[in-house]
């Protein structure tokens, strides 16, 4: 018995060793996942779940007031700086707006001197094409390489150590109105890139490139027949309205889908367990809504896909037949939440249309959709059908004045990403508080063609402030606290394990607030308004740092970065009307700021 027992335990030991070996073999290479100790920041959202949560806790509400500037660096570029600094192994990487310079800073040296600078020689004519300033939302690091996009439609891989170009892939044509502004994401050796330019009659897509070579592996269009959208047997949308053959053709008049927009200029998330990527599609364009009756699939919604094949898994359309420019490109933050007595794998998606969607990320079922901003354009989301219930009284029409369209086209929140803290279980939302009027337009003229349209004018929403920074509890369906900001909060946010949250304002304040109650702990006045994405990392000296790019611009700040005429309220699609005082409080120019405790 004893002998037999001994033999059994030997057999078990052997099995354990085998299982352990298999487990170790199955582990992804260390470089494929962000370091868990919070030292690094390898992608704009820090992790695949897009939490923008730093596990560092040296900076706390009790010491944040002592934060000091560690170093700064002028990028020499004047347009809007929306990128997140990337930090890997003692080096920080920053990509600028057009002309898309990449800087590498040596964090081990005092003052973090420039290790190398890369100039991609971006085509100057791409500037005239970009819709809303010539921004770039950042680079991404994977396996010793740095990947980023240029405004003139190139994805470029650099050797992160030397700054040497390894490959570049051309993905689109400027002449057709296409640009690239988003930050790529690298999943399973694939560089995922989406296009910009829905205003100009292009067809949106997400493309996967081989990280080793730049060769295209798949491209999933946002409109057109199922074979182009990579919809096949695996596609199981939750709602009946998204089921059926070739809806990307049938929900449009005749050939309108061929130039139907649905670009992919925002964020991508990835759930390694479910092996699914999530991203949003932009508005349908350049058609007038009256010219494109139908739901206009697959615009203004969220796609779930397999990263290896691009196959669609599910889709949810937040704004069918969009009439307001409510692009669906905002981030999806992947978290597990206790809902209805069970832990649900959900994604949190604060949409431009003003609703914070909590969606089961395995199935695409909308579990809740609560207004996080002031909404007049719709009356709620029907959870049975998933449908947005539009308010017909606010439907814009040419030749008709429609006032109090809320949120304005820029949405209750635009591209600027939220942060999630697993400690407070709150989503920190940088947002707008803007409404707009659609007025009867004057005669316009473009490329020798006279026409009439509608004139948009944005203005502050209820309360008179134009922005907010709020903390949202997705389980309790409520705003826990909010900070009213004079200007739209067009910067990203970062949450930290020290329970301090950082964000920036367009008049140039970089702020630290208490994650629990929003109390202002510290602020620093930067040289230009902030629309960048703050990040936090541990420096080679072992201390926690917080970094952000200042440099006002983007759609909201184009009045400054583009020297727009403040008398022309309809400039920048009506945004200038709401931002006439911005040039009085800030000037343009990119500057990197890095802070730490003394």
């Amino acid at each position, binding site marked *: 018995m004893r002998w037999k027992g001994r033999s059994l335990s030997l057999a078990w030991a052997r099995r354990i060793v085998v299982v352990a070996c298999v487990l170790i073999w199955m582990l992804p290479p260390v470089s494929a996942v962000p370091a868990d100790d919070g030292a690094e920041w390898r992608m704009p959202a820090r992790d695949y779940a897009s939490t923008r949560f730093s596990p560092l806790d040296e900076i706390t509400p009790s010491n944040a007031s002592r934060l000091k500037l560690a170093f700064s660096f002028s990028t020499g570029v004047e347009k809007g700086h929306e990128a997140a600094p990337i930090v890997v192994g003692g080096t920080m990487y920053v990509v600028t707006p057009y002309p898309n310079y990449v800087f590498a800073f040596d964090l081990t040296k005092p003052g973090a001197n420039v290790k190398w600078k890369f100039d991609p020689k971006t085509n100057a004519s791409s500037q*005239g094409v970009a819709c809303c300033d010539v921004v770039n939302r950042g680079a991404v690091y994977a396996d010793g390489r740095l990947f980023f996009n240029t405004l003139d439609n190139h994805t470029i891989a650099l050797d992160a150590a030397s700054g040497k170009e390894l490959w570049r892939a051309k993905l689109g044509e400027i002449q057709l109105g296409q640009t690239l502004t988003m930050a790529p994401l690298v999943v399973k050796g694939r560089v995922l890139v989406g296009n910009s330019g829905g*205003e100009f009659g292009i067809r949106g897509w997400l493309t996967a490139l081989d990280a080793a070579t730049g060769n295209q592996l798949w491209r999933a269009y946002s409109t057109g027949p199922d074979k182009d959208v990579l919809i096949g047997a695996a596609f199981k949308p939750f709602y009946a309205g998204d089921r059926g053959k070739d809806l990307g053709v049938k929900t449009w008049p005749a050939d309108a889908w061929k130039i139907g927009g649905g670009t992919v200029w925002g964020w991508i998330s990835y759930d390694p367990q479910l092996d699914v990527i999530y991203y949003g599609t932009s508005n349908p364009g*350049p*058609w007038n809504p009256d*010219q494109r009756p139908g739901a206009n699939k697959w615009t203004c919604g969220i796609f779930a896909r397999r990263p290896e094949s691009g196959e669609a898994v599910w889709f949810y359309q937040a704004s069918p037949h969009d009439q307001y420019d409510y692009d669906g490109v905002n981030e999806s933050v992947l978290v597990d939440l206790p809902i209805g007595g069970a832990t649900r794998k959900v994604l949190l998606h604060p949409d431009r249309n003003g609703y914070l969607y909590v969606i089961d990320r395995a199935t695409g079922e909308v579990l809740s959709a609560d207004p996080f901003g002031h909404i007049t354009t719709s009356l709620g989301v029907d959870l049975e059908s998933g449908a947005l219930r539009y308010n017909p009284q606010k439907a814009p029409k040419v030749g008709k004045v429609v006032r109090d369209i809320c949120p304005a086209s820029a949405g209750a929140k635009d591209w600027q990403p939220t942060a999630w803290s697993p400690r407070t279980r709150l989503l920190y939302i940088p947002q707008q508080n803007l409404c707009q009027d659609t007025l009867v337009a004057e005669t316009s003229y*473009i*490329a*020798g*063609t006279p026409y009439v349209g509608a004139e948009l004018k944005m203005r502050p929403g209820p309360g008179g402030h134009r922005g907010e920074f709020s903390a949202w509890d997705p389980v309790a369906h409520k705003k826990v606290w909010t900070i009213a900001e004079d200007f739209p909060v067009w910067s990203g946010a970062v949450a930290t394990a020290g329970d301090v949250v950082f964000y920036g304002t367009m008049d140039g304040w970089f702020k630290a607030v208490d994650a629990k109650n929003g109390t202002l702990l510290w602020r620093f006045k930067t040289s230009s308004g902030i629309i960048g994405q703050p990040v936090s990392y541990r420096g080679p000296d072992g201390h926690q740092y917080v970094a952000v790019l200042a440099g006002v611009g983007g759609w909201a700040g184009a009045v400054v970065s583009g020297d727009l005429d403040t008398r022309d309220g309809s400039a920048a699609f009506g945004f200038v009307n709401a931002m006439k005082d911005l040039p009085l409080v800030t000037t343009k120019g990119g500057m990197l700021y890095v802070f730490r405790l003394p």
Partner: protein
Amino acid sequence: MSSVCRNALLFVALLCFTGLAQPRELRVCADPDNLPLSDASGNGFENRIARLVAEEMGAELRYEWLPLRRGFVRKTIDAGLCDVFIGVPREFERVLVTRSYYRSSYVFVDGPRAHGIDGFDDGRLASLTIGVQLVGNDLAATPPGHALAATRNVENVRGFTIYGEGPVAQRMVAAVASGEIDAALIWGPQAGYFARRAALEVRAARPPFGLAGVPFEFDIAMGVRRGDRALRDEIDAIIERRRADIDAILAAYSVPRSDRAGGETQ
């Protein structure tokens, strides 16, 4: 006065003199690839009108080439790159406009299946494939685009964006000529030139009844910087003086006119 000073003064005087003696310049902002209006080789009718205006002023003609797309006023005339646009709608408020020198309308360019079509009440419209120009986002559409939507003719409409290889009217007329679409609704001055070369007919489009605030005809004028009244007045006088020559240029480019006695609009 020291000789150094005297020499310096002489030098300054010389500089002033040569500055004054330099010929006057007329700086025109134009699209480098937008025939029949303009192209970088100077082959468009706006190029020819620009030469005429410069000649009348005794000025040297200089171009600033930029695709006249969104934000073009801000990037060109407002940025001080040039003094004049040769063609803008008379109602265009971004610039100070001169008097108009022609009036045209949106037109149908028809192929065999759409022969003779001129309005939106034509029963054939529902079954025809019609091309329209797409100009942008946010409720912006050409007047015929609005008209097609208002009359519920949306199912067989083909959009042609201003972005693409070559002028949009050229692509649209080629699509009619090849039978890819049955008819195209195009701004007259762009349509006439390409239609004639393709031996296709051009017919002024009648707006549908009840489509308020969406005109099909536009007066075209030149545009100068807001506040530049002197230049405006000077150009106004030139337009009056050389009206017959301008008319001849427009006729040579088959610009359909809705302002000519005898109904020269085809």
